[in-house]
């Protein structure tokens, strides 16, 4: 088996070794599978491992590359996919008991694109049931149980791409596919100390992926570095006529290299000052330190506020109403009673009471909010803030109640998800409990290069992304 140091290399570094035939895709897949079998169950990180498929793909990659047919940066690179994308012949459980034996006889478009790129699927990653589509109150709301944070297994990974976060952080795969309707990539990336990118809405096809909110769902990469997120996005982005909301050909594609991503002038960064109700002590200093690193390297930093408007309300209502339509059959049949979370079991009944007028009104307000946010980007290339308002929460924390307290109307995930903006979180420090903090960058819709440029520039000058969890206590 390969040394742990190799398994924590970036996709770019692994890809270069594979391209130059210094590393065997077969040996790499075997090593990640071995590690996943050993450590994965201790973290509840996977729903299903796919060793037969992985080894078939790894052998094919080795043969292709030996024959001079190198396909690109993901050729021979193992990955995991959140268990809401269809993989032909394997269970696709959506993380939920009512779908525990569900199988599809086709691949999701994103899986097809990865197959064509020669990538190697080693497993389906655990997730919050229905990706939280009908609501949930804690990390236990998953078919596979609470996903444990590799930095400290008494703490949660966040969700809903919980397994994807744990897998990358624990070195079980170099990258994993996640999905994000409102924060489901950014939060686990932040809590697990890895890079996580939510691409612009419509850039990555969702055909064959479970729907929650049709107008907000996105698929995106979770990896060690922002650069790796760019590499993966360059493969999975592209127009797909099977996804109604896919961006047009010529717009959806994402040609990427760190050189074309570097902006022609100093990066203009707006530090968001009014989005979180409160932040964990120490986090604000980490964000300020991160921005100082960028400033020392040429970026222009200034403070900016999000105007007061019902962003969170519009995001939450859009998700509630669209999810009720997406899961209408589950709710109407009463099978939602089989969900684990008490909120998920009943939320659909409440949401069925929304009217068409209410939905349309939310969407009309949304158009206005989108324009308002778009204007901010006349002055800034990216907005910056914490990936999440705290480090990971312990499993002993009381369940969160969606319906408690006033609405936190300017939280960044609601704003950026509602408006289809790209965002990327990378690690930037640690809490007093030695749990990772993340800094996230948000850009104008379709300016995915800007978030990668900001995060990549930060990572070139820091080594937070090279820190590894003390996995010894998981795998003594």
């Amino acid at each position, binding site marked *: 088996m390969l040394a742990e140091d190799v398994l924590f290399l970036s996709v770019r570094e692994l890809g270069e070794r594979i391209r130059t035939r210094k590393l065997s895709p077969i040996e790499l897949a075997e090593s990640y599978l071995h590690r996943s079998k050993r450590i994965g169950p201790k973290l509840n990180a996977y729903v299903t491992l796919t060793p037969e498929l992985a080894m078939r793909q790894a052998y094919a990659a080795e043969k292709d590359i030996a024959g001079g047919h190198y396909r690109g940066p993901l050729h021979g690179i193992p990955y995991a996919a959140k268990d809401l994308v269809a993989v032909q012949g394997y269970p696709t459980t959506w993380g939920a008991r009512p779908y525990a034996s569900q199988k599809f006889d086709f691949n999701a478009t994103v899986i097809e694109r990865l197959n064509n790129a020669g990538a190697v699927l080693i497993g389906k990653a655990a997730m919050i049931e229905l990706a939280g589509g009908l609501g949930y109150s804690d990390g236990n709301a998953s078919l596979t149980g609470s996903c444990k944070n590799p930095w400290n297994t008494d703490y949660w990974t966040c969700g809903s791409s919980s397994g994807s976060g744990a897998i990358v952080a624990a070195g079980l795969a170099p990258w994993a596919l996640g999905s994000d309707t409102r924060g489901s990539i950014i939060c686990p990336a932040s809590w697990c100390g890895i890079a996580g990118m939510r691409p612009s809405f419509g850039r990555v096809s969702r055909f064959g992926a479970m729907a929650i909110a049709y107008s907000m769902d996105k698929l995106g990469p979770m990896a060690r570095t922002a650069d790796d997120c760019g590499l993966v996005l360059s493969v999975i982005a592209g127009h797909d006529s099977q996804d109604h909301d896919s961006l047009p050909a010529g717009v959806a594609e994402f040609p990427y290299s760190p050189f074309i991503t570097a902006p022609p002038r100093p990066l203009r960064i707006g530090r968001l000052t009014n989005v979180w109700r409160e932040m964990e002590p120490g986090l604000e200093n980490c964000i300020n330190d991160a921005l100082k690193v960028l400033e020392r390297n040429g970026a222009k930093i200034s403070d900016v506020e999000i105007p007061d408007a019902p962003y969170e309300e519009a995001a939450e209502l859009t998700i509630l109403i669209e999810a009720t339509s997406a899961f209408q059959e589950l709710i109407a049949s009463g099978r939602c009673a089989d969900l684990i979370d008490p909120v998920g079991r009943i939320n659909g009944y409440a949401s069925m*009471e929304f009217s068409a007028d209410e939905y349309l009104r939310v969407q009309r307000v949304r158009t206005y909010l989108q324009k308002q946010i778009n204007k901010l980007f006349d002055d800034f290339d990216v907005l910056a803030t914490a990936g999440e308002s705290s480090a990971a929460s312990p499993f002993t924390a009381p369940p969160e109640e969606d319906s408690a307290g006033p*609405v936190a109307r300017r939280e960044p995930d609601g704003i950026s998800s509602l408006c289809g903006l790209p965002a990327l979180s990378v690690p930037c420090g640690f809490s007093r409990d030695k749990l990772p903090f993340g800094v996230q960058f948000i850009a104008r819709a379709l300016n995915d290069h800007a978030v990668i440029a900001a995060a990549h520039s930060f990572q070139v000058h820091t080594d937070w992304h090279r820190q590894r969890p003390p996995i010894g206590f998981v795998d003594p």
Partner: protein
Amino acid sequence: MHPVTGLSAAQLADVEAKLANVVRKYGARLTESERQHIRKILVYNETMLASIRSFRLKNGDSPASVLKVSFAEGTTPKEKS
């Protein structure tokens, strides 16, 4: 205005009407505790809707959900016309 929920009497009446409708349709599936939980959710939803309703809109302000016309794969709209 209700001192805890911040909702008006009319808004609270809406909540009760919605709860009655849920119970009418799905009451056989719900425990008393779940019905109370649903009331709490409906109050929260009503609070969010109140924010949205207070936002001034004009007749021409169109929704973010639109039908996108399609055309044959491999052609441009110009070629099609």
